[in-house]
């Protein structure tokens, strides 16, 4: 298929909404970088914000800000209503049973750390095992290493195949009576692999092993239903789904959260305090010590509403088209090798090019207005597995266009010219 034909021959739509219309909702996209239109293809690192999110945050600060759960005055009540309203929006978005199961955190990383410290650390004995995969982001490796170091538990790693899929047969061999948790990425940030977590969860349940999913990369691209998945914990960040940085979510099964001790102590997480004894607040506030990121929660709710208006299934379908086109075009670039060729992938393409280091690609593409990520993507074990120091990664969102993929391909040709 001719590249220019593809980008002009039809009207790109997410559901019934034209992508050109969607792009008008994202003011940041409408700018020139180094004399070229910005092609923002670094969405797996952080996505951009529609005007409705910016407005929600701005409106909150202009009209409604006060501390939550405190005062009886009007502003405090408004802030509390909006903050708790955001929790209900998140609950409905992931179909949790109750808002008690939705803990606001600083992001995915903090959510995983909370489970590591409050759920796993008190439960493991020397020799017990925590099972992860070789695909994981550092955020789903290091917290478990901490637990292991302090308890004598052992970190076990399910290998991946050359395609970048988690080896299910190896998993079935590794899970056993000493396994105390299975912690898996739902989608790999480095490779884009969609992990078929459902079948892993089925096996884990048979062994009575609780399951945590790192959903940071899955939640922007697909419908997530925690009850249907049957996982025990699900972690994600707002800034990957068009919301603000510094806020994320831990979904936890209520019965487990109830039994877990608080992680951090402070205001908001207590009912009564004396120097002799403190009683803790109920869920979900038991895990939210200190004044929370109120504007962040409100911004995240606005982002979720925006995505729901477009429809997560429509987003997934459009992004799948972008991924297919990008994969097809990238394969034609001389010397280019795609890293991670799983059968089911989210809209993420990692690649290397013979004779051009990813870091140089990053700089040269930026000179052409194309923003991609280069490096190890916080997944150094994945790089080690493929025996490469780094990759270039293009990651797409529903507001990206086929023309931007053409711009990427042209910029790659330019890189070859510059570096000879």
């Amino acid at each position, binding site marked *: 298929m001719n590249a220019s034909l593809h980008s002009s021959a039809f009207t790109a739509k997410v559901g019934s909404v034209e992508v050109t219309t969607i792009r008008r909702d994202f003011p940041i996209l409408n700018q020139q970088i*180094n004399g070229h239109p910005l092609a923002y293809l670094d969405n797996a690192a952080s996505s951009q914000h529609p005007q409705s999110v910016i407005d929600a945050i701005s409106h909150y600060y202009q009209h409604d800000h006060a501390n939550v759960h405190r005062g009886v005055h009007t502003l405090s009540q408004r802030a509390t209503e909006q903050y708790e309203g955001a929790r209900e929006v998140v609950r409905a978005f992931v179909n949790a049973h109750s808002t008690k199961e939705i803990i606001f955190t600083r992001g995915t990383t903090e959510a995983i750390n909370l489970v590591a410290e409050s759920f796993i650390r008190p439960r493991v004995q020397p020799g017990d095992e925590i099972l992860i995969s070789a695909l994981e982001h550092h955020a789903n490796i290091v917290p478990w290493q901490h637990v292991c170091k302090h308890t004598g538990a052992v970190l076990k790693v399910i290998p991946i195949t050359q395609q970048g899929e988690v080896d299910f047969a190896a998993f079935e061999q590794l899970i056993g009576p000493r396994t105390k948790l299975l912690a898996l990425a739902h989608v790999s940030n480095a490779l884009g692999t969609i992990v078929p977590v459902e079948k892993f969860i089925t096996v884990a349940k048979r062994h009575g092993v609780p399951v945590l999913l790192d959903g940071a990369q899955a939640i922007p691209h697909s419908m997530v239903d925690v009850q249907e998945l049957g996982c025990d914990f699900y972690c994600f960040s707002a800034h990957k789904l068009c919301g603000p940085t510094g806020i994320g979510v831990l979904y936890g099964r209520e019965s487990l959260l109830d039994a877990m001790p608080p992680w951090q102590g402070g205001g908001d997480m207590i009912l009564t305090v004396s120097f002799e004894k403190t009683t803790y607040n109920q869920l979900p506030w038991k895990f939210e010590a200190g004044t929370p990121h109120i504007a962040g929660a409100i911004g995240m709710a606005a982002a979720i509403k925006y995505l729901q208006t477009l429809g997560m299934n429509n987003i997934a379908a459009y992004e799948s088209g972008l991924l297919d086109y990008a994969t097809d075009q990238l394969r034609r670039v001389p010397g280019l090798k795609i890293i991670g060729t799983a059968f089911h992938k989210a809209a993420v393409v990692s690649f290397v090019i013979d004779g051009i280091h990813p*870091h140089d690609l990053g700089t*040269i593409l930026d000179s052409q207005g194309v923003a991609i990520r280069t*490096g*190890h993507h916080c997944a150094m074990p994945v790089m080690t597995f493929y025996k490469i*120091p780094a990759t270039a990664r293009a990651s797409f969102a529903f507001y990206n266009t086929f023309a931007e993929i053409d711009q990427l391909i042209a910029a790659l040709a330019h890189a070859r010219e510059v570096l000879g």
Partner: protein
Amino acid sequence: MDLKDLYRDVIVDHNKHPRNFGLIDPADAHADGHNPLCGDQLTITVRLDGDVISDVKFEGSGCAISTASASLMTEAVRGKSKRDFDSLHDQVHDMLTHHDSTIDPSSLGKLGALSGVREFPARVKCATLCWHTLQAALLNHSQPVSTE
């Protein structure tokens, strides 16, 4: 931002055809440099004749800027005393890291081609890695060097 300031012909040439690439064995001094965020890693080996760098080689993998900087450095420092190396190191470092550097790039010969790097803050660490690594080798430091 002009890409040609960064990827000058000398840089492109030294990236494609690195000089003094390899290991001296046995070496009188050596050190490793590693910038894990971008994936640059190199080993520098040195042969000393008294206080003079009589031979120096580098090996490893990295981006065009780090490779060219290492290649240019090995050419420039061969035959220099440790003290002259320190002086050159300081001049190159000043040129790479300061916008208002008073170092005239043309006074540094081919190394002057690296002066464009200072317009690209994210890439300065690529150019400086080999210089810090050679300095560590000459000081007998055993810890790997990083400029990240």
